[in-house]
């Protein structure tokens, strides 16, 4: 397929893998975090760990929007559909995620709630226009990639004077999450893992540009290479990170230059800024409350803010205490370290956020990487 197969060329992959093997110093370990769930998914889907030497270790970050949405926010969405009898519109991969008492949007639908799967925010607005006697709420989730379409739909609703449409906003911010990981007392206290560099987000960076990462390179001395979601992008980014580490550099480099600029998408950033403002604090599954890490709808668009339109209140929801997703998202533990992994916690019955979506580290390990476990078992036998 044009513009896809080119980035999945096995021969080229083996050449880059060979360069990685020859340039990675055997005397040291390289712990590289891919922030994005899209990268985590690609790493496992293409079997990239098989191509890397043992001392290059990929650590899986929190960049999976479905995974990090706290149960309390999901519960609120379900409550909107059930108690307030709205048509709740959600992106597909949110539908199955279990909230409190394992209740998901799909289960709520089975119980009679009107939950619709949409492919874009505009589909939700159209539903509102088609059902003028019903309240329609768009369940907006995601990082900076999905925020501009949500901003656009709010502007469009205002322009068209649609009165029965609102947005339940859960958009979160990538740089704040990276700060949280780097500043994390958990990572510091456990001291188990020192991250040597980051593979920077692909789609998020097309919007925000490479510039927001520059302070991490300076303040924390961590190299960052922004990479596309194709497997060759990833391998090339890993090679670039190893070179930076070896040369003692900590810079922001852009492997994904076919789509990402330093400034990003100015128009998208502008409409997001016009529509949203930072929340003081927002809860992340696995990371806890992270300051200034999410967006809320500005007062001038309050009529389209589901949180203002409906009387919903915040309720905290406890996670399973044995769940290691927090340390896993901080990169200090691996899914294999978790006693729940693969037994009590599976993609069919996820207990923690990392098992929820195919972009989560535990789900990716489980679905794509379980054969590695048998190899390890054989080696140690």
């Amino acid at each position: 397929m044009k513009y896809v197969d080119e980035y999945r060329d096995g021969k080229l992959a083996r050449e880059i893998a060979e360069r990685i093997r020859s340039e990675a110093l055997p005397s040291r370990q390289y712990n590289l975090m891919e922030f994005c769930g899209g990268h985590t998914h690609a790493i496992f889907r293409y079997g990239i760990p098989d191509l890397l030497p043992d001392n290059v270790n990929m650590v899986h970050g929190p960049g999976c929007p479905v995974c990090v949405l706290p149960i309390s926010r999901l519960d609120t969405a379900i409550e909107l559909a059930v108690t307030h009898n709205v048509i709740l519109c959600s992106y597909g991969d949110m539908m199955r995620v279990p909230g409190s008492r394992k209740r998901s949007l799909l289960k709520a639908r089975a119980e009679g709630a009107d939950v619709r799967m949409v492919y874009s925010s505009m589909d939700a607005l159209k539903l509102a226009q088609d059902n003028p006697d019903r309240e329609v709420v768009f369940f907006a989730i995601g990082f900076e990639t999905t925020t501009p379409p949500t901003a656009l739909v709010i502007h469009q609703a205002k322009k068209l004077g649609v009165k029965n449409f609102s947005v339940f906003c859960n958009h979160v911010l990538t740089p704040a999450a990276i700060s949280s990981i780097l500043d994390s007392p958990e990572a510091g206290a456990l001291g188990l893992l020192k991250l040597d560099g980051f593979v920077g987000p692909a789609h998020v960076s097309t919007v925000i540009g490479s510039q927001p990462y520059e302070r991490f390179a300076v303040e924390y001395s961590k190299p960052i290479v922004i990479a596309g979601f194709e497997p060759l992008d990833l391998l090339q980014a890993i090679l670039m990170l190893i070179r930076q580490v070896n040369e003692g550099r900590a810079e922001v480099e852009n492997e994904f230059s076919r789509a990402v600029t330093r400034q990003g998408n100015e128009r998208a950033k502008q409409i997001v800024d016009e529509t949203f403002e930072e929340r003081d604090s927002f809860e992340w599954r696995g990371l806890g409350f992270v300051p200034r890490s999410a967006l809320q709808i500005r007062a001038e668009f309050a009529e389209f803010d589901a949180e203002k339109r409906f009387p919903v209140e915040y309720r905290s929801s406890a996670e399973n205490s044995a769940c290691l997703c927090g340390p896993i998202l901080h990169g200090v533990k691996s899914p294999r370290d978790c006693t729940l992994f693969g037994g009590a916690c599976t993609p069919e019955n996820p207990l923690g956020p990392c098992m929820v979506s195919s972009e989560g580290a535990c789900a990716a390990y489980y679905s794509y990487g379980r054969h590695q476990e048998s190899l390890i078992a054989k080696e140690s036998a």
Partner: protein
Amino acid sequence: MTKRTEYSHALDLQNGRVEMAHGSGGKAMAQLIDELFLQAFSNPWLEQMNDQACFTLPPGRAVMATDSHVISPLFFPGGDIGSLSVHGTVNDVAMSGAVPKYLSAGFILEEGFPLADLQRIVQSMARAAEDAGVAIVTGDTKVVERGKGDGCFINTTGIGVVAEQLHLSGNRVQPGDKILLSGTLGDHGVAIMSLREGLTFETTIASDSQSLHDLVAAMVTGVPEINCMRDPTRGGLAATLNEIAQSSNVGVTIYEANIPVKPQVSAACEFLGLDPLYVANEGKLVAFCPADKAEQLLAIMQQHPKGNEAAIIGEVTADPLKFVQMETVFGGRRMVDWISAEQLPRIC
């Protein structure tokens, strides 16, 4: 063929709609059967108008399969619920190596469903049955109140006969067997997905819905040693391979580079965040056969119009963990796991 009685007005097949009376057992139902089903399915068994069909099967072991069809939308590029309800059951029977012979058809219709649509569906079933060499010999019609169905549901049950020397089964697959796929993956699922409400995605992909009885006949005639055949419908190839691995206590390795996928299907899957390995097919089969027969079987399949894109896609391994693994085009390996539920599109 004679009608049971004279009806005062012919069934209005242009503008009429299904009414509760059409499932009541009375005159209205008799008229629907006479003027629609009997017309389309015409065969000696049906015309006897008994509550059952009575027939003698040729020598061999009898094979039976049933399938209910609830597809939405009812009409799609490459077929409709009528043809699909024949293909699905014919293929389930044929995967045993059998020759499908007879079908039953049970309709659950929703009050208000247009008779013109029903006629289109029934005629399509009749054509599909004729193509597959099967007769629809018994049937049933029920009508549910408006809002309690989705227009039209069809259940079909099929009976066929398999030659005594053939023994195809999901638990007979052996380590070393080669795995052959009859053609491209994902056509049906992507064709349907592109039509579903809320997804305005233009594509020229048609469903692959077709009967595989003739391809199967050519395969088992040429290579009776085939250990197992399955049609990878819901859950796609991934589900089928995992079922076989479980039933036969084996592992499976497939090679991504050998798996045929149409470029349009691949592009649609890329766009929607779906994996063609998990997308439904309605006119493809996967066969497991001893390695020394694989090339011969491949040649037979490729010479058949329904198998001309066939490929050897992998092999069966000895693996107590019963893992299905894939060597990716990229040179790495990964698991091809059971899917836990319906594939849902990823957001980014």
